[in-house]
């Protein structure tokens, strides 16, 4: 794991623990509770903002409005029953959620995954990344442009393309959203006839439309003015806070679990990490767009070489109590569209985990908000929050 830090820009950081009593503003400080009911808080995040005029003096994010007790729930369910539950954590990227937890179970059980299943997992994870980034791009421009305006247009375009991927996944797994695709030892469904050709045509269609988003967003001076130099995270702060994924790579830190600890079929394909060095909102946008291109490339490259063979490395799972790993613990982290998604599981030798812990990247991304928001205005608050790509279902669990 060689984290190569490029140009660690450390400016004057905002003080997230500012004592508001000692603050001397130009006028009275107004407290604004942004959320949990707010169109741009990505679900149910509550941001408590202290405003001087429209400038944020201090910001505190309050989490937990979407807490469903998933980790406790996982202790009550068997290993087999847990994948549909974690599907709902990061609800725009179900495949990677399942993958992280199932891989932790597999590490515990010590079963071998057939090569075909590893290929299918990788292809699914990469297409899921494209779908997730498309949704991010859409909602991000919605944050910037509003419900009646250019933002919706970009949103509609992104959802149009995401629909193609959902159709592919529907054909593969029977579900459009919560796939229940991964299972201990392999994948639940084999590739349907002709799926590879359809995947390639979808990837080509989406790849051809990415320049369209660029012409609408990054070639638009208003968009650039709204994103450049806004919400700058320096590489050191990002690493201190445990930020990962595109948010970290936008700070110039070349850290990608697909390369650092190859899992699934990533050891058989070269992953070219997208990097940007500014650490601002525009850099995060660039990194995500480049990742979409790279994921499409990986998926189309892998689909040709999917080896023949079984899709399960153990005897088929027919009952809910089929998986019974030995006592012990295991931690597996994968690179989800949002960053390092970890699953830690402790087994006592029964068919239910003794303890499950998920490490959601969104939670760590949100911890940057108290550093990023002071000194900005409300429009920037929305843009910065959107650029971190938090999914509250994952952060609150």
């Amino acid at each position, binding site marked *: 794991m060689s984290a190569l830090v490029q140009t660690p820009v450390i400016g004057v950081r905002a003080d997230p623990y500012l004592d508001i009593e000692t603050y001397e503003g130009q006028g009275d400080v*107004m407290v*604004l509770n942004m959320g949990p009911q*707010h*169109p*741009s808080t990505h679900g149910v995040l509550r941001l408590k903002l202290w405003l001087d*005029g*429209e400038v944020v003096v201090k910001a505190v994010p309050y989490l937990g409005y979407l807490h469903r007790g998933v980790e406790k729930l996982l202790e009550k369910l068997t290993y087999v029953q847990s994948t549909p539950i974690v599907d709902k954590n990061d609800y725009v990227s179900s495949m990677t959620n399942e993958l992280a937890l199932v891989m932790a179970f597999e590490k515990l059980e010590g079963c071998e995954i057939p090569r075909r299943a590893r290929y299918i997992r990788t292809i699914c994870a990469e297409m899921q990344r494209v779908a997730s980034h498309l949704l991010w791009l859409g909602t991000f*421009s*919605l*944050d*910037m*442009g*509003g*419900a*009646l*305006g*250019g*933002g*919706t*247009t*970009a949103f*509609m*375009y992104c959802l*149009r393309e995401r629909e193609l991927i959902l159709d592919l996944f529907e054909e593969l797994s029977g579900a459009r959203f919560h796939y229940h695709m991964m299972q201990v030892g392999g994948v639940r469904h084999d590739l349907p006839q002709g799926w590879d050709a359809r995947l390639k045509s979808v990837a080509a269609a989406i790849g051809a439309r990415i320049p369209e988003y660029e012409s*609408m*967003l990054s070639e*638009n001076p*208003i*968009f650039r*003015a*709204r994103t450049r130099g806004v919400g700058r995270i320096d590489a050191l702060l990002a690493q201190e806070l445990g930020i990962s994924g595109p948010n970290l790579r936008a700070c110039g830190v070349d850290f990608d679990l697909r390369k650092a600890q190859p899992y699934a079929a990533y050891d058989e394909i070269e992953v070219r990490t997208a990097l940007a060095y500014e650490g601002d909102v525009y850099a995060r946008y660039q990194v995500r767009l480049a990742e979409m291109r790279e994921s499409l490339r990986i998926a189309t490259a892998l689909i040709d070489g999917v080896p023949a063979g079984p899709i399960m490395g153990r005897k088929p799972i027919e009952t809910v109590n089929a998986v019974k790993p030995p006592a012990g613990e295991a931690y597996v982290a994968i690179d989800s569209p949002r960053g390092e998604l970890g699953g830690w599981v402790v087994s006592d030798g029964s068919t239910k985990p003794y303890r499950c812990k998920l490490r959601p990247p969104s939670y760590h991304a949100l911890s940057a908000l108290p550093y990023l928001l002071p000194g900005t*205005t*409300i*429009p*920037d*608050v*929305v843009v910065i929050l959107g650029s971190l790509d938090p999914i509250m279902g994952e952060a609150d669990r």
Partner: protein
Amino acid sequence: MLHALILGIVIASALLGVTSYYIWFERKFAGRMQSRVGPEHVGWKGLLQPIADAFKLLIKEDITPRTADRVLFNLAPLLAVFVALLTLAVLPLASGLVIADLDVGVLFVLAAGAMTVVPTWMAGWGSNNKYALLGGMRAIAQSVAYGVPLVLAALEGIAIAFFALRPGSFPYQLQDHVFILLTAGVVVMALVPVILSGSMNLSKIVAAQAGGHWFAFWPPGPGLAGGLIFVLATLAEGNRIPFDIPEAESELVSGISTEYTGMKFGMFYLGEYVHSLIGSALFVTLFLGGYDGPGPNVMALQLCWFLLKTALVSVVLLWARWTYVRVRSDQLMTLCWKYLLPSGLAVVVVSALWAWWREGGLS
């Protein structure tokens, strides 16, 4: 007097009808841009959708928050529509077809435009809601940004210098300039046609453009630049994307109209659309020759030309709206203070020089 009253009622009602179908058209247009179909189910091609929408707004519960300032809160939506309709009074729709043929027409238009901030601020303050307050605050900052400096700098300096060169060419007294302090930022740009035509009467401005000498194209340069700046200022004044900062629903929930329900919300909505329609009509009048067009000078044909041009301009505004994302409030301030103001002044100077040269210059 009675004639003007009846004409006013007819035109205003017609405009409200047009506005509701303008909304229908916008939804269809936006749908096309976004690879959707837009309203489709109420009536043929969704043509009854505006009526259904208005009816829905009427039967919604009308809520006044307990902590709101009742008078301001309830007055603001009415005033929003009223102020938006004011400009209509002086717009010449065809030769002779104008409700009030004011000699200070341009001034009246600008004063009415500046008034839009009053209902916005009333709603922002009266709602007793933090988001509404921020929205209202932004509206005031915005209107000052493209308002006062332009008026002070432009009218006091340039106008006096110019009028001194052409005594008697202006049908209003310079002593009236205090009133100008009320006017909005479109002032400088609206001044270009004023200078070019030598009149503040909108009918005379249109008459000066007769025969295809539209100010947007003739004289080449200042008119077009002025027209573009005027469009930007109109967008800003009408709170349309990319300048819909006081509403900014992704930031301020719904800004000034956060606490409004039912038809009171509908009034703000209507006011916004009326404003953008009239803004397009005003642009047509000032820069695109108004009702001037090929063909005989028949009132019906002139009206058609006027409506056609207005429709085209408003489609361009819609196009911009559904393409761009919103600017930040401080970026709008920068745009207005640093770019629009100096370039506006430059354009005014250039057109003044051109008018002076046409009058004979130094000779």
